[in-house]
């Protein structure tokens, strides 16, 4: 009995340690980067940046975003970068405090939550750390950060809806598949469609959240088909949901794509989605640009050379792809 207790205690500790090691990957990485930086620092001064991001496993968007940042903020480009990942605000704040203690020059932040950042950003300001926000904004005074590089989700939605208006269909009967309710992407992309549909008198056949989930989208569209509803547009707020919707259409033998019965629209520009566009199975895909690093680098370069940033909020260029004009080059360049 005693042995068993001892053994279970031992395994328990091991598991705990494994979990701590798993969660705290950023910590050893940071110290490693610091020691590496110590040697070349004598000859050439590297710019120290601390990057706080969401978990790259969260989505294809985040994976592409993280890859892009890793590529830009490398030693060859004159940066000594440390990364911290978390989907939780409090863990991100702890990571930020650690980066401030480590005396980074720049703190790049994609906050998990909009609230709760005032104190730590004030600390950063006192310590002389310049803060740049990317991808997500926060509820804090503008003076606390240098710049914020964001996507304008409402504009993304508007671009897509404008494209849809341009199709000049005889009638508009839309199935609207929404993302997780309340998320910035959902609000922006739904808002544009809602307003235009009201103005132009479009019929929204079904408006339902599939929570970014392909299976749920498939069920919702299936349900619309089973109920005998007539529709000619599928407006899905991300690619996964568009894919689910298309699976349901295929089952019911409803044709979709360029010049077919149903127009399929997606967002995010996953590579596979753009390939569907290229094959003319879908009609439109809106970009949500994950490549912020070039914008960030530009700002850092300006600040380092003593310049000032005229505009606090920088909205990135985002494209919308039409199946009839997309090229293989677009797929390679913009697919994530």
């Amino acid at each position, binding site marked *: 009995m005693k042995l068993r207790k001892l*053994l*279970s205690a031992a*395994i*328990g500790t091991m*598991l705990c340690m494994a*979990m701590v090691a*798993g969660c705290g990957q950023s910590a050893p990485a940071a110290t490693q980067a610091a020691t590496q930086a110590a040697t070349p620092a004598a000859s050439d001064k590297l710019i120290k940046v601390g990057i706080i991001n969401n978990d*790259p*496993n*969260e*989505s*294809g968007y985040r*994976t592409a975003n993280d890859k892009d940042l890793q590529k830009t903020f490398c030693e060859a480009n004159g940066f000594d970068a440390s990364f911290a990942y978390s989907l939780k605000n409090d863990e991100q704040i702890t990571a930020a405090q650690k980066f401030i203690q480590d005396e980074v020059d720049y703190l790049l932040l994609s906050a998990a939550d909009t609230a709760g950042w005032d104190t730590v950003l004030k600390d950063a300001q006192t310590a002389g750390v310049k803060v740049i926000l990317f991808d997500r904004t926060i509820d804090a005074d503008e003076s606390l950060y240098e710049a914020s590089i964001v996507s304008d989700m409402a504009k993304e939605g508007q671009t897509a809806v404008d494209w849809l208006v341009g199709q000049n269909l005889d009638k508009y009967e839309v199935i609207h598949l*929404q993302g997780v*309710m309340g998320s910035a992407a959902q609000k922006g992309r739904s808002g544009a469609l809602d307003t235009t549909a009201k103005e132009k008198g479009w019929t929204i056949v*079904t*408006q*339902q*959240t599939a*929570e*970014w*989930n*392909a*299976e749920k989208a*498939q*069920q*919702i569209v*299936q*349900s619309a*088909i*089973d*109920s*005998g509803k007539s529709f000619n547009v599928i407006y899905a707020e991300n690619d*996964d949901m568009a*894919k*689910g919707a298309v*699976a349901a*259409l*295929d*089952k*019911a*033998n*409803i*044709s979709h794509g360029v010049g077919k019965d149903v127009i399929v629209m997606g967002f995010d520009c*996953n590579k*596979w989605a753009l390939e569907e566009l290229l094959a003319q199975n879908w009609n439109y895909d809106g970009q949500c640009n994950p490549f912020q690093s070039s914008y960030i680098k530009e700002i850092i370069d300006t600040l380092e050379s003593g310049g000032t940033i005229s505009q606090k909020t920088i909205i990135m260029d985002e494209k919308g792809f039409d199946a009839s004009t997309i090229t293989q080059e677009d797929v390679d360049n913009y697919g994530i």
Partner: protein
Amino acid sequence: MTKKLDPHGGGSAITGIFRNQIFIPFAALMLLAIFNLIADPSFFAITMNNNSAGYPVLSGQLITIIDNGSELAILAIGMTLVTASSRGQDISVGAAIAISGSVLLRVLCGTDTRPETMQAPIIVGFIVAAIAAMAFGAFNGVLVAYFRIQPMVATLILFTAGRSIAAWINNNELPIVPGEEFKYFGGYIPGIPVPTPFLIAILCFILTWLMLKFTNIGLYSQSVGINEKTSRLNGLNPELIKLTTYVILGLCVAVTGLIKVSRLSTINYSVIAKDIEMDAILAVALGGNSLSGGKFNMAASILGAYVIQFLTTTLYKFDVQATALPAYKAVVVIVLVVLSAPVVREKTARLAKKLRSSKTPAENHA
């Protein structure tokens, strides 16, 4: 199975039906069916159409229910056994589906995310995925059985880490399986108009029935769940039995994973089967099974799973406002679960008895 376990076999026919566990999910199903019948009878229409591959297939809301509810029903089999033997639930099934699905993708696609042809036969992919899922099931089982960790806490580990493991298996990529044959498992086999997931589910039910009839796993897992010490004194090995139930759940997870991957030829590990563990547990509860282990009724659990899907499809059909959907579901669930609670059932049984005896006042005053 049910009859053998029901000690109240002697009561009148009516109380027998009420006391039978399967009455609860059955009543719920009837309630939903009647509601739909009144609101819109076309809900029950089934038509035969060609799908885009050119084969005739059945379609309609009922077909959608048996199609989409099948994964949950398969999971409910394993979850019922786990609940019975370990007096707790495995909350990692969703994450485990992500893992087994990713393994399947990895084997079928190799290292290429867009292969031209499948890199391995489907059966090989499924076997590897099943081994992986059963290994993770065994991991949970060992923690629960041998280290005496609470099932919910033990499976919390995989619940947290599972989707990251799934991401790691495919290098954060989302491979797509080529070819039409792979789509059969989540779609239709050419020439057969019934959705394949339902056929797979039926096969699983038959296998489970055979397993419960010809092996002692059902009896053993119940006795372990009721009293571990007496089971041990009677020569059973409770640890091994608990472990076995978790491995069986692992196999159920692998089958579900196959269907899920096949539906779209790919999965997104971060959202696949999200929150399915809660639905699986709910299916067990709806089946009138005690969540604190012991006796179970497999058929009731399976019916419970289809009731949940029936409810979901009904809500979709009536275009319940997206934001309000979970609230509606919660209300229905609360009603069903409260009705199926042993306390309420006992009270209604007593009430029924009183009503009956009041009809014969002579006896009452005797």
